[in-house]
Structure formats: C-alpha cells, structure tokens
C-alpha cells in the first residue's frame, strides 16, 4: 500500500509529504542506532521519538514513512527537515503497538 493511501485509510495526520512510496515492511523503535542497523528498506517506521535526527535516520534507512505515535507532534526542526528532504511524516493517536497492528492489517504486512 502507498503511504498516502495508508494515511487516508488510517486517518493519520500528514505533517510532511515525501515521494510516492510503497510500504513493504514495518519497524518499531526509538533508539536510533537500533533503527539504522535493523529497520528494513521501505518500511513504515513507528516511533515516539521526536527530534530532528529522526528525519536524518529515516533517509539513511530509506524508510517509506515515519509514523509518530501517541499523538506526538513533530517539533519545528523535525518538521522543517522532513519537508526539506522530503520524507513522509505521519501522526497517529494510539500507542506503537496498536498502530503497528493497524498498519499491519491495512498494508497486509
């Protein structure tokens, strides 16, 4: 499923739009070193981490999108970096576990 399609179906807030991307996988985590060494390409990355380095890490791992969970809104620096790169930055209301289940069910991953 494409990122914009997931955002519409799941009712996620779109903070920043990236290139059209297909979500092929998922990864949950907040420790950036774990994420860059373990997250698969083209994944939806679910996190509650909210700072500018999240955008840098997202491009390094070439993820399909970042999903900020638990109602976390990006700070100014993260938002600006995500828009500049650009990388998809979405916002979700529930916790990482619940949102991972939702992404899994909707994307069939």
């Amino acid at each position, binding site marked *: 499923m494409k990122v914009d399609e997931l955002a519409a179906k799941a009712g996620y807030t779109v903070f920043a739009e990236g290139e059209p991307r297909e979500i092929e996988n998922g990864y949950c985590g907040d420790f950036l070193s774990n994420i860059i060494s373990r997250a698969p390409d083209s994944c939806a990355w679910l996190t509650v981490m909210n700072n500018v380095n999240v955008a840098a890490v997202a491009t*390094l791992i*070439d993820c399909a999108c970042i999903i900020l969970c638990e109602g976390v809104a990006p700070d100014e620096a993260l938002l600006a970096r995500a828009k500049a790169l650009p990388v998809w930055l979405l916002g979700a209301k529930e916790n990482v576990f619940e949102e991972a289940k939702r992404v899994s069910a909707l994307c069939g991953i």
Partner: protein
Amino acid sequence: MEECIRLEYDVDGNNFSSAGNASESVKRTLKQLGVDAASVRRVAIAMYEGEINMVIHAHGGKAIAEIYPERIDIYLKDSGPGIADIDLAMKAGYSTATENIRSLGFGAGMGLPNMKKYSDDMQIDSTVGVGTTVFLRICF
C-alpha cells in the same frame, strides 16, 4: 597512486540538526556513481554513527571520504577527549552518553559496534586529551 573522489566535511559539534549531513552527502554521491544499494546503506550507517559520535563526544571534527571504484575509505578526525579504553568502548551496549543525549535517541552503546559491523576494516587511533581518528573501509 589510485585515482579517487575526495570529499571533505566539517562536522559541527554543537549542531544536532546538521548531524548526518556528511553521510547523507556521501550516500547521494555513491548512488549517483551507481554503487549498489546494499553497499551504499552500509557506508551511510557506518559514517552516520561516526558523525554522531563526533557531535556527541568530541565537539565535532572533520569527515573525509575517498571514493575508489571498488571501495570507500573514510577518516573521521576529532580533537575531542579521546577514548581511554577502546575495547570497552567497542562493547555493544556500553555508552558514556548523558541522559540528555539518550533523550534524543542516541546512547544505546551501538555506535562503534555498528561501525564495525558495517565496515570491512575499522581502525581507531585515539589519545586521551588529544583526539580520535577512526578509519573505515567499505568494499563495494
């Protein structure tokens, strides 16, 4: 002497928002040169960890990348506090990062282990009170 593309970057030690710029630039260059995606990812990860280390521990420094047809050599040079016990620093999970750094998502103690894991050769030359140079070689 082999011909190479040499890229040099200043890593700003006081700026977390620009951390990752050097590795992002090298990643883009390698992609343009047609280096395979798996190698590009290894380079980006190893170099990003090095860059972040320089920002967290050493007030920044210099990152130099030399790109050859079959490999990349990366030198990360800082004038930071140095590493007293390199074996200990190489242990997965060992970190001297502060609580503040951890709140940014770093300090898992995986930086140096990740750099080793994703490179084909890694050398650390460090003197306490003088600085550290990390050499990374990644073969495509």
